[in-house]
């Protein structure tokens, strides 16, 4: 094993890591927005909305992420600008983030729905019996309590996205996996660059999990 190549190639790992984190941040942010809407649609009394939301979640969870990525990248001609920001080609980055966040949104929707439905029915009834409207009850009573269940699970979703996002390297987004392959190709070394990548992924997800665990314990001890 020889890691001396790092001296010349560390920049690849560095920018790759940065891009992976940026990709994951955008994905989780958009995924939470999509997931919130889908979750609210799913629990709404409107049968059409709830059917659409259920179909979305089932379809996304029942098909491989790679297929979803290819459909969006190759199958749907998006009017994306051909510009490069922070060393990332937007015509690849935007469809990549879209595919990831559409995918993550389905999982986030389930996290949010489960978090809301875990709240005892009596809470909504007590709120409504006081004369609060459905949306006030949601906002002041149900969602604040649901958030306690949702936030830790969302943290986990972030960890998952960091790992899963490696798949976008196949459409040429310069994330950590892509840059690792670049180094591999340049050096004809099969193993060492992959070990570096694995270690970086692990450090990212492990640190994040630990931080989340701490935050969660703090939140629980608040009450």
């Amino acid at each position: 094993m020889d890691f001396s190549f790092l001296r010349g190639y560390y920049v690849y790992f560095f920018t790759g890591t940065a891009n992976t984190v940026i990709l994951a941040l955008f994905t989780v942010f958009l995924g939470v927005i999509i997931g919130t809407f889908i979750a609210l649609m799913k629990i709404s009394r409107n049968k059409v909305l709830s059917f659409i939301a259920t179909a979305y979640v089932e379809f996304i969870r029942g098909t491989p992420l790679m297929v979803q990525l290819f459909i969006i990248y190759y199958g749907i001609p998006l009017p994306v600008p051909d510009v490069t920001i922070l060393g990332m080609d937007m015509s690849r980055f935007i469809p990549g983030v879209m595919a990831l966040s559409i995918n993550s949104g389905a999982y986030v929707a389930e996290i949010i729905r489960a978090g809301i439905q875990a709240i005892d029915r009596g809470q909504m009834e007590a709120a409504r019996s006081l004369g609060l409207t459905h949306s006030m009850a949601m906002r002041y009573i149900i969602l604040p309590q649901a958030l306690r269940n949702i936030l830790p699970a969302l943290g986990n979703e972030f960890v998952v996205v960091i790992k899963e996002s490696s798949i976008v390297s196949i459409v040429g987004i310069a994330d950590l996996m892509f840059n690792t392959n670049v180094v591999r190709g340049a050096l004809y070394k099969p193993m060492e660059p992959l070990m570096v990548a694995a270690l970086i992924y692990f450090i990212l997800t492990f640190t994040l999990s630990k931080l989340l665990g701490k935050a969660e314990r703090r939140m629980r001890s608040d009450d």
Partner: protein
Amino acid sequence: MIEVRGLHKHFGKLHVLKGIDASIQKGEVVVVIGPSGSGKSTFLRCLNLLEQPTEGEIIFEGINITSKENNINLYRQKMGMVFQQFNLFPHLTVMGNITLAPMKLKNLSKEEAEEKALNLLRRIGLEDKATSYPSQLSGGQKQRIAIVRALAMSPDVMLFDEPTSALDPEMVGEVLDVMKELADDGMTMVVVTHEMGFAREVGSRVLFMDDGKILEEAKPAELFNNPKHPRTKEFLAKVL
């Protein structure tokens, strides 16, 4: 104050309320008794439309609240409800529980709402719990706070669904005392309960429900000492 006419409720195929007519006058304490599953809770929850009646009308203060044109949220503000399981909001303090609805719905300022809450808390001797969270209270304290939370909206009528059934025996008394005081102050109340002592002492009228119908209604002394319907006799023989 409340008129119930031809009330039916189905849960899917299950026919739970089978034609109920009742009227509740201002200042009355109407106690509802009956065997488990007879539809007492469902009847009570239809009064403020927590359950949507399948058929029939609820007239509250002269207004048909079952009609779709009327905004039920406005009428619920005037009908306080107390639940068997308390249903306090665990993420809010006692003060937050009591002041939320008055602030959001009656546009009271925080100061006004808190002052009113403190007055109510003083009446039940729990003003020192204002900053506690529900998880720090005993069952009896929780239920008294739940009563105060409903009272903070200054309702015209209070609905109680077995308010003492989830309590340890030694805490039943403190909750019944608060309810008694409320009755003495002239509050209109509908109380579903298994506390026959309370029914006898505080009730102005007792309704006996069985199998989705009101089988008998009378003043407590009469209903307890001289029940007319064989089902009432059978039920009272079991619980007294």
